[in-house]
């Protein structure tokens, strides 16, 4: 994007602010029917962990560890036109500039916004991106509510983990799922074109709030996006060059929900391509990931003299069609334990995995074919506010605890042979477990909001994220976040938290909202 365009956008943004109405309000036009609000934000992330091993393959030994994970400036505008009680239009527009490469000479040029797909409504280059992230119309006709357009849908009850929340893919090119936990996935979920129909079912009387929701996502599939080669958050070895398939849609989902005996229950079904790909490497042999040098395989010939003179391996990302069948419920037990209990369950009868083969006397070949195995995931969560008046006489502490488990319900013999992997070679175990704990409270009329988040993987990994938000007036928001990831098991192939030991960082963010 040319410099003059950047300047123009920034000027427009400031003009919008300057000519807006007095005070803190949304900008309003057309007698309040058309509103504009949003924010300007600057975010800086200081890298305090070790070198990202996934970027080491093409890095000379003399190159130091980078210090800047991110320096991102963003303008976000939300435009809403409420024509009537039954029809409205909404749009969310973003402009982002990523300048980390300019600040840190140890950071190579990388593609900051790698996610692309037909209909993404995006203009970009390596460092800048402008996008209409959401654009939809809401139409209400009696008990039927339709939302048509580019949008996000979030199912499920779980924080951080994706069980039923599988409608939209994630843009993980700049953060992982546990980042800034209380912001959820709003900034990470990629909006897609879809039809969402929500119908209040009138004839069901034994359940309160009975609703049927139907989702249809036509068009090309869009999967999760990981960080690009050389990016600070790259989680794939640079020696692997990924080619992603883009199968055609549509994807379809149905959700039935209601409140029965004061428990909110949902039944969910989503038939869709697997967002998180499985990677096949044709004709490969085992290579040592720590060295990152393939011994054979479908190799990209060296392009010439230069840093990338080591050979790279082609890997093909596949996203097979699969079913997500699940349910969730929550219940407020207000008499004895005074906590909210939430449970989410997912069965994937045809979840795809990478399968290797072993030829005696020759060797083992990883990522050779796709194997589909039934997989179950569930999460049990408890939320319970409590008073600790000695530390905060006017606000409760929020306590949240979750246990998440994933287990493969068939194919145990294949797992035992150690030839089943997922997402680029991570070993799949029969059962994996993760615990999360969160604690937060608020001071000074909620102007100071400290949060502590901790995730623990018993296989030998943890994620610790203390954070705090500060509010000043109606406009200014400041945010601090520390992230420490580590554990005994640092082998990324084991797909545990410990493998992200290099992620450690401190983040500072300032936002001016209007």
């Amino acid at each position, binding site marked *: 994007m040319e410099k003059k365009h950047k300047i123009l956008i920034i000027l427009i943004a400031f003009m919008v602010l300057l000519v807006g109405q007095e005070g803190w309000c949304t900008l309003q036009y057309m007698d309040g029917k058309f509103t504009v609000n949003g924010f300007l934000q600057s975010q800086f992330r200081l890298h305090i962990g070790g070198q990202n091993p996934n970027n080491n393959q093409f890095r000379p030994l003399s190159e130091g560890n980078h210090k800047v994970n991110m320096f991102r400036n963003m303008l976000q505008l939300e435009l809403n036109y409420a024509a009537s009680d039954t029809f409205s239009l909404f749009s969310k527009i973003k402009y982002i500039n990523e300048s980390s490469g300019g600040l840190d000479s140890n950071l190579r040029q990388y593609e900051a916004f790698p996610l692309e797909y037909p209909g993404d409504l995006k203009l970009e280059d390596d460092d800048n991106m402008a996008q209409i992230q959401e654009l939809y119309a809401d139409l209400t006709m009696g008990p039927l509510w339709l939302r048509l357009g580019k949008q996000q849908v979030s199912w499920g009850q779980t924080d951080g983990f994706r069980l039923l929340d599988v409608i939209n893919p994630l843009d993980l090119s700049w953060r992982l799922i546990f980042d800034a936990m209380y912001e959820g996935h709003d900034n990470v979920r990629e909006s897609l074109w879809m039809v969402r129909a929500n119908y209040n079912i009138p004839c069901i009387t034994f359940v309160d709030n009975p609703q049927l929701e139907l989702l249809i996502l036509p068009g090309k599939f869009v999967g999760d996006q990981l960080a690009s080669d050389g990016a600070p958050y790259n989680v794939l070895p640079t020696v692997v060059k990924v080619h992603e398939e883009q199968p055609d849609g549509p994807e379809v989902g149905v959700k039935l929900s209601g409140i029965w005996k004061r428990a909110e229950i949902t039944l969910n079904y989503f038939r869709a391509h697997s967002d998180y790909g499985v990677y096949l490497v044709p004709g490969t042999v085992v290579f040592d990931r720590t060295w990152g040098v393939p011994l054979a395989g479908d190799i990209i010939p060296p392009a010439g003299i230069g840093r990338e003179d080591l050979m790279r391996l082609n890997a093909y990302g596949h996203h097979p069609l699969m079913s997500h069948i699940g349910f969730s419920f929550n219940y407020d037990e207000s008499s004895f334990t005074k906590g909210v209990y939430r449970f989410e369950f997912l069965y994937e009868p045809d979840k795809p995995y990478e399968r290797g083969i072993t030829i005696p006397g020759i060797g083992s070949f990883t990522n050779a074919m796709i194997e589909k195995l039934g997989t179950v995931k569930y999460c049990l969560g408890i*939320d319970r506010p409590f008073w600790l008046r000695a530390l905060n006489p006017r606000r409760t502490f929020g306590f949240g605890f979750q246990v998440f488990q994933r287990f493969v319900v068939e194919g145990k013999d294949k797992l035992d042979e150690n030839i089943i992997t997922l997402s680029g070679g991570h070993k799949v175990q029969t059962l994996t477990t993760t615990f999360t704990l969160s604690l937060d409270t608020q001071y000074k009329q909620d102007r100071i909001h400290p949060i502590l988040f901790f995730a623990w993987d018993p296989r030998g990994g943890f994620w610790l994220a203390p954070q705090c938000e500060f509010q000043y007036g109606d406009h200014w928001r400041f945010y601090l976040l520390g992230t420490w990831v580590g554990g005994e098991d640092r082998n990324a192939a084991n797909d545990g938290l410990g493998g992200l030991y290099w992620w450690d960082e401190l983040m500072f963010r300032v936002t001016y909202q209007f």
Partner: protein
Amino acid sequence: MRKVMTMRKLFIGFLSIAFIVGICFIPGYAGDRQTIQELTGGKVKPGDVINKSNVALVKDLIPDGYVDMVGKGMELVIADPGPWHTPGFFVEVTKKNMGRAVIDEKDNLRTKEGNWWDGGAPFPDVKLDDPQAGLKVMYNDLHSYEGDDFTHDETNPFYVGSDGKLERTIKMSWDRIYLTAREKLDPKPTYAEKYKELMFKQFAYVQEPFDLKGFGNLGIRYNDSTQRDDSYAYIPAMRRVRRLASAQRFDAFVGSDATLGDFRQLDVPTATWKYKLVSMKPMLAMIHGGVWSKTKGTMEEKVLPPFTEGYKFLRVKWEVVPEVYGVECMPKDPKDCPIYSKKVVFIAGVIGNTAPMEPVHRTWRTLYSVAYDISGKLMKSCWNSWYGYGDPEQPQGTEDIFYEMCYGCYDNQIDHSSPWPVNLPGRKFNVGFTPERFSIGYLQKFGK
């Protein structure tokens, strides 16, 4: 003979005096309206301003929390009582149902037939010496008329520091639909059989600032007031509806000095607290505040009530309310309210200068309350400040409607205030909402 005559006269005189005194103190009989001059021995009259220099003149007519507030800069503008009446159809329903209300063994309100209460004030003639008088006054307040549904399209919680300056503001809306004990709108008294266990549903949603925009809360209150509310919130950052723990009603509401439990002075499932009537007397209150507040538009278009000490304290008219019931409230389980040892709520019986001083015309309107911390010290004072009756912008056809100009709470201990001016043109009653609007689906739709 002369001695017998004298004794007879004395006896008749005594009986006469006893009769007159008895009339004045028959439980349920409201007596005459007294003026501010009569109550203060002529030391205060309409038009006077009560401030820190003369608050002692009225210290028996306002709660101690307000004496403290006047001492810190609040001013009361004394006024003559204005017109106020209880809607005619509500009086008729009260008369029709008079005598049918009972309190069951769990402190729930029912009809004699064992069903949930179905309309009107349940105990209009509450007896002052009734051991359950406090509970009955609270049920009268709960069932006082405020429409079978209502909407506030905008209310603005202000956050005001010790220096009187605005720290920040929020813009939010609040809607409610009553599903049982409906008095005016059809279907009545119960909206539908499937809702017979529900008292009301309400929906509060934040419109500004940007980081809270889209936050919505759906609350469901049950007729069985031993049951806690069901509460759901749409969290915009998560794009989903979360179930909230309803047991904690005394956490600060979006950081303000008011908690959920402070709304309407004490907004809790009634049977989970215990109540004692501690006073019934004339008091001063903000009944006809005199400002048709408008919080929408530019700063020039807004019409806010006047304040003193920056935005800390309202400066509006106060008038004598002839009957004010003081009810001392304490949670049955102290864990339900870990921050207050007790709260004293003041509820008006007859208001203004037009309603007949008769039990069925009692309006049962909350005026203010004072809360005390765990150690028994004064902690917080909350208020409902009323504009009065009638919409000056629509003078015909709205005479049954009263308007609340400003709700709020002041933390007496940390000198922090949260007044909530209400946009009165946007306050509407008996809109004709349907229960489906108060749903999880609507939370998602509004929240984006």
